[in-house]
């Protein structure tokens, strides 16, 4: 028996040695990813598969991270100009671009792709809601005609619903894509798709950007949900980058011999909706008291291990619409007590229920901190972890019987504050969807619509309107804005070029990376 074991050992060791030539390793990398694939249809995709879609497909233009010199990077378009009234945008397209199957990229592909998306009407197709028509001027010029003046370049650069796919896929449906097929113009092709296990992003030889200079050529995505396993894969060198690791292990990975953490801004934020339809949270003073009693610093330190900043309002720092002029609520337990007393609850003395999504480990981690702090002002919080769809449908069903506090993680579909401000707080009548504070304020609804329509022509004025709108909200305090998340990728020190672009949540652009 012992002999056999030894023999197997030897065999495994020698096979491993043969199969792992060190020279090839530089161009290949392993990414242990917690981001699953819900669909591979680029017109429909509106979820975590974005991590891969943005490497397989391309948009006309891409929004650069805040602080860049240029607002946009030009991918499939080389430039654009807007008409005077902001209703027509004309894009010049890049020449000599090929899709993965060899089909040349032309204006027809743009028209086909966007019309396919709007035609299917799924996923994030709603961002094209104000589109009137797409007119092909010539093979490399295309004009978008809009019904209203909306910031079209941002929509065309959206992380969802704006990808260009090959017109040669005309007869293929979503089910075909979901079997592991793709056909974009991006630097990587999808290969060896094993749903729920692993898939390969393999070099597309004819990529228009070329392969000169250092680039990662093949990325094996190993789908790995548990943070603990991702940590061990990173530390043992089995993965060059991972999606998330246990919170308390960040310091060790950051200062590790072979490992590091890459940080960057993100447009993702956490918030707590207060149920404004029934006592005691229908009283604005109670809501303000709670906003002052939230331990923002503890949430940041322990809930996020420092990888977050206190939120100011609904718009995260760095995104258009953010301003220091928006009033912020800070932790102040004395003020909280005073406000409670003014509201007629001198020693608290009431109970609240708080729901969060059971799938979200982050919320599980910071919810007890809020509970423990509210106890200090005499408020007992019952925490309920519900599966997301349950949490959400209970909140939507009947506000009068719904939770008191609803924790939510939010991110914008594209880089404009309107969608966030509209979805989270506009009056949804008796059918709430995302406004889970059940807040109603016609003046606010009017302000944000005005701001949206002036964004293209007068950005300064739009910003002012957005600030005023946000301050209307802060005065009523229907939502406590908790934290803006700091994006991060734990990675090997040998991996260079890994950066975070908050407009594309959780997307590592592999083409910009290489292994040293």
């Amino acid at each position, binding site marked *: 028996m012992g002999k056999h074991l030894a023999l197997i050992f030897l065999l495994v060791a020698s096979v491993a040695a043969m199969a792992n030539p060190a020279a090839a390793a530089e161009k290949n990398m392993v990414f242990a990813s917690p981001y699953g694939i819900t*669909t591979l249809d680029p017109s429909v995709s509106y979820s975590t598969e974005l991590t891969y879609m943005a490497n397989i497909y391309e948009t006309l233009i891409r929004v650069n991270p805040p602080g860049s010199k240029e607002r946009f990077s030009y991918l499939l378009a080389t430039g654009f100009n807007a008409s005077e009234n902001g209703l027509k945008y004309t894009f010049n397209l890049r020449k000599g671009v090929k899709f993965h199957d060899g089909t040349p990229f032309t204006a027809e592909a743009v028209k086909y792709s966007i019309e396919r998306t709007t035609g299917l009407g799924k996923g994030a197709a709603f961002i094209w809601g104000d589109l009137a028509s797409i007119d092909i001027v010539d093979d490399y010029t295309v004009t978008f005609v809009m019904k209203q003046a909306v910031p079209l370049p941002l929509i065309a650069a959206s992380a969802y619903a704006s990808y260009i796919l090959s017109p040669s896929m005309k007869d293929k449906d979503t089910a075909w894509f979901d079997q592991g097929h793709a056909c974009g113009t991006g630097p990587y092709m999808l290969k*060896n798709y094993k749903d729920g*296990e692993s898939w390969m992003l393999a070099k597309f030889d004819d990529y228009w950007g070329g392969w000169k200079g250092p680039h990662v050529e093949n990325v094996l995505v190993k789908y790995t949900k548990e943070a603990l396993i991702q940590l061990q894969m990173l530390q043992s060198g089995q993965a060059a980058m991972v999606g998330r690791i246990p919170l308390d292990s960040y310091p060790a990975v950051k200062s590790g011999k072979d490992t590091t953490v890459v940080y960057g801004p993100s447009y993702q934020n956490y918030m707590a909706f207060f149920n404004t339809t029934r006592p005691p949270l229908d009283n604005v003073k109670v809501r303000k008291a709670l906003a002052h009693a939230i331990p923002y610093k503890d949430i940041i330190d322990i809930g996020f291990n420092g990888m977050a900043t206190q939120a100011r309002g609904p718009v995260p720092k760095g995104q258009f619409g953010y301003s220091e002029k928006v009033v912020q609520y800070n932790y102040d337990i004395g003020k909280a007590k005073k406000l409670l007393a003014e509201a007629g609850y001198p020693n608290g003395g009431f109970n609240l229920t708080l729901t969060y999504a059971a799938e979200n480990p982050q919320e599980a981690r910071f919810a007890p901190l809020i509970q423990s702090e509210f106890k200090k002002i005499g408020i007992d919080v019952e925490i309920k972890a519900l599966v997301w769809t349950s949490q959400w449908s209970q909140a939507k069903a009947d506000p009068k019987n719904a939770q008191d506090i609803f924790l939510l993680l939010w991110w914008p579909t594209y880089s404009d504050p309107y969608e966030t401000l509209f979805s989270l707080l506009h009056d949804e009548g008796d059918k709430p969807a995302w406004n889970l504070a059940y807040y109603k304020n016609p003046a606010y609804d009017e302000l944000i619509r005005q701001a949206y329509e002036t964004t293209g022509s007068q950005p300064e004025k739009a910003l002012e309107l957005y600030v005023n709108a946000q301050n209307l909200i802060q005065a009523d305090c229907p939502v406590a804005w908790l934290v803006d998340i700091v994006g991060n990728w734990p990675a090997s020190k040998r991996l260079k070029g890994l950066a975070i672009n908050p407009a594309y949540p959780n997307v590592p652009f592999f083409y910009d990376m290489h292994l040293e």
Partner: protein
Amino acid sequence: MSLVPFLSRRLIGLAVMLVALSALVFFFSRSIPGDVAAMYIGGMAKPEQIERARQELGLDQPLTLQYVKYMKKLLSGDLGISLRTHRPVFQDLLEKIPMSMEVVLWAIALAMVLGIGFGGLAALRQGTWIDEGIKWLSSAAVSIPIFFLALLLQLIFFNLLGWFPLQGRIDTFLEFSNPLELVTGFSLIDSLLTGNHAAFFNVAWHMVLPVLSLIAYPLGLITRLTRSSLLEVMSQDYILAARASGIRESVLFFRYGLRNALSPVLTVVGLSVALTLLATFYVEIIFNWPGIGYYALTAILSLDYPVLMGVTLMIGTVYVVANTSMDILRRIVDPRIK
């Protein structure tokens, strides 16, 4: 009763049971307060889209009608579309069942062989330290929570000793050079069929810790049962009589004792298959094994009801099939059962 009517009766029973099960799961999972249509869209779904998806999925129809439609499709092998992955559930199950069954079957087979061996040894050496030791170990084996055992094994054998791999079915570097191809879904068989020897040994190596985690409970159970069952059989009058008539002890033990003692043991083996399949839920999370347990658990936690239906029906079927086949085995082994 001969085998054919016995089997046909069991088969009819199976069909009735599965219909009852399916109805139970359907109405049960649909009574869950969750917005199925919203989940189908994913992301920050907007109200109008949800309404459209609701119509597309037929969720606006009465529940009973939905059930009838579901059953009609079921008969043609269509289990619907997963709300989360948007792929046909039947296809997903076909891909993932073998990956789990591979581990489960190894665990059960080893547990059966080792369990009967240890149990027999303990009974033979009743009252000695061997017996005591086996008793303690088997008690411990059924007492350790599976998730804790799996975590411990990983901590010890990967982190401290580095003897076994951490996760998955195959080392990632082999995915570049010798990727596994899908033939039957059983990775060991597939790698042999495609002549991928590197993958074969690698996969075998990856299976050790998951199998070890899964083996504990059935092994403990079978050991204990074999021991007590054997002791009971060996004190029966006919054994005593046989012994008095001078039949050799070893013949007595193996020919009469063990054989007759196996009947209750086989019942437990049948039960263990379904139990072990459920235990894979935990083992597969911890070892990142892309099998049915992982798949089902994600479905449970996201209320993906078409998948839940599929998985429940599958486990129900495995349960009944395992029990039936063990019943047949018992009839072969134990002539007393008629």
